[in-house]
């Protein structure tokens, strides 16, 4: 059973098309990146998935069925801009929101205490939300998202505003959740996090699908025929190298279509050069993002 199946959804507001015939699916136990520039339609897509707004056309299936009260209870959502009841105590706030996900008060309190311990936030459980720092508030909001043990998590910019320590804490918790078989949708601008965490991605722009599939395959598709080399010695006229570009600490060698990276590596070794680094040049997701978004706009 797929965690999410979105089929040809579309949504317009007044004269603006926010989402245009978008289809994708998310598997159980995978971390899925939903990326795109501001105003691309990510939030509208997420809201349609959660049945907060209705699509003009198309279908959304969550955990094998149309979203209903039961499936809402198995879904955790972390919105981009965080907010909780400022005047409420941390424990009361999380327990109330957990109860709206179907948890009884006793189980919710037990689970909240466990998660507060895990995140090192136990000392703050009787504080009012307004007394917490922004980063602490983020962690509490993340606990609200996972307290009811959801099968599907939708996280909008989960790392925004977190310090490196809490970012690592969150990454570790997300990895654990994926290993437990949860499906996680990560909507973010931080491409390095997507590269590090996600198995598959969907890139959208102007409400349309730009790139969709397994991340490693997408990156391979964008790979150019060049290598990055840090070496000592004289390179000379290397066969198959059409041009070279010097960067700080390494040189990029552009190869012709008949030459492979392995042939260049063999050539360098045969010449007895000292090689500190040899890497097949692969564009980062950020470069792919900029290229695709730039192309469309």
């Amino acid at each position, binding site marked *: 059973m797929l965690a999410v199946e979105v089929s040809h959804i579309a949504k317009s507001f007044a004269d603006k098309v926010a989402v245009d015939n978008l289809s994708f699916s998310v598997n159980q136990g995978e971390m899925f990146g939903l990326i795109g520039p501001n105003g691309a339609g990510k939030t509208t897509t997420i809201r349609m998935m959660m049945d907060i*707004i209705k699509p003009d056309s198309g279908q959304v299936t969550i955990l094998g069925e149309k979203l209903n009260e039961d499936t809402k209870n198995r*879904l955790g*959502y972390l*919105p981009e801009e*965080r907010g909780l009841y400022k005047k*409420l105590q941390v424990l009361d706030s999380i327990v*109330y929101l957990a*109860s709206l996900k179907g948890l009884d008060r006793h189980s919710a309190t037990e689970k909240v205490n466990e998660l507060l311990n895990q995140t090192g936030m136990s000392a703050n459980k009787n504080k009012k939300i307004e007394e917490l720092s922004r980063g602490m508030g983020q962690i509490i909001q993340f606990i609200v998202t996972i307290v009811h043990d959801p099968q599907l998590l939708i996280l909008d910019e989960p790392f925004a505003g977190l310090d490196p320590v809490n970012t690592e804490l969150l990454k570790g918790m997300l990895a654990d959740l994926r290993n437990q078989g949860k499906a996680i949708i990560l909507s973010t601008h931080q491409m390095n996090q997507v590269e590090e965490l996600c198995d598959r991605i969907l890139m959208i722009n102007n409400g349309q699908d730009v790139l969709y599939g397994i991340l490693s395959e997408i990156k391979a598709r964008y790979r150019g025929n060049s290598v990055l080399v840090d070496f000592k010695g004289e390179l000379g006229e290397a066969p198959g190298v059409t041009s070279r570009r010097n960067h700080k600490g390494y040189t990029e060698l552009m190869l012709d279509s008949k030459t492979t990276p392995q042939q260049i590596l063999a050539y360098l070794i045969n010449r007895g050069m000292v090689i500190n680094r040899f890497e097949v040049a692969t564009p980062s997701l950020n470069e792919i993002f900029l290229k695709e978004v730039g192309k469309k706009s």
Partner: protein
Amino acid sequence: MNKTLLIFRHEFLQMIKRKGFIILTLIVPVLALIGIGIFQLVSTDEPPLVDTVIVGYVDETGGFDEFTTQGYIELVHFGTADDATAALINSDVSEYFIIPSDYLSTGVINRYTLERQLETPPAIATGIKNFLTSNMLTNKVPPETIYRIEYPLALVTTRLTETGEVATEQGGYGNVIIPAIFSLLLALSLQASSIYLVQGLGDEKENRLIEVLLSSVSPRQLLTGKILGLGTAGLVQVVIWLASLPLLLNLASSTIGGFFGTIQLPANFVVLGVIYFILGYLLFASLSAGVGAISPSAREGQQLSMIYAMLVYVPLWFASFLFIFPGSPIWSVLAIFPVTAPITVMLKLGVTGIAAWELAASLSVMVLSIIGALLLSVKAFRVYLLMYGKRPSWGEIIRSLRSG
């Protein structure tokens, strides 16, 4: 537990824990008890001590020399106006008056004082009048007649029913006082409940918590739970006030007596008080839900809600007009117009009573308005709840409500 019930419980508990709510709820019975307590502490069986006021007079007519004690006013004779003026400046007298030689033909009395006054204090005027009357009539008519001329009537009015029996409600200020106080409290309660609803929605919208809530519950569950939770808290407040009124009245009437002994609760007052709170609240809550949905922030929502929240006070602003012109058709209009109906009906119950047709029309219009406001608000709630930033223009709102 049902999710609507969970939201209801949360909103109810949060509302009754608010300091403002607790203060407003308890202030009425507590202030009344404090008032009764203070009265008991300071009251004694002896009449209160009042300082004697010395008033001088110059008699140019002659014959005004008896009855110089009028209540707490002591009248002192002076031979000339100059003597009286000197006594006034020396503070030997608080004021003086001259009975001119042509008094019997003109009736003019010239009064002199150092104080700046809007008019002659009634006690002084009555004292001078009785002094003059007593002196002019003494030895001409019996003392009882002089007394009756000075105090000619004590008017006792009895209201009869259409069958000629003595009516249970005799009217007068004793009948008005409780509805008037309750009207003010009802207005405050309605205003507070709707402001809290707008503020709650505004806060949840402003901090985006609304998205987390809507990922757990439907807009219908959220709206129903909120309206019922806040409404029940408001109802608890009104019921506490209404339940405390008969107890406080009994206590005040047995302790203080006097005017408090004449205070009555109009028939059906408690029942109609509860009914009009519920209907008034549902109307205001429906409007507030719509306002909360279209407003980008709690502050802007509160500003918008003040438009109708202030209208609830209109009948109170003109309450004195109701006492002077109780039969004016304006009161029937205000009793039927939904936003002003709860307060107007409460006031009318105390002053003139309310006709059956007025009550029927008022209740019908209220119910229809609630249904209309609720339908529009639910539409606005669906369309605008997740729209942030600038508030949509009225034109846009009307267009989207029309298109649904």
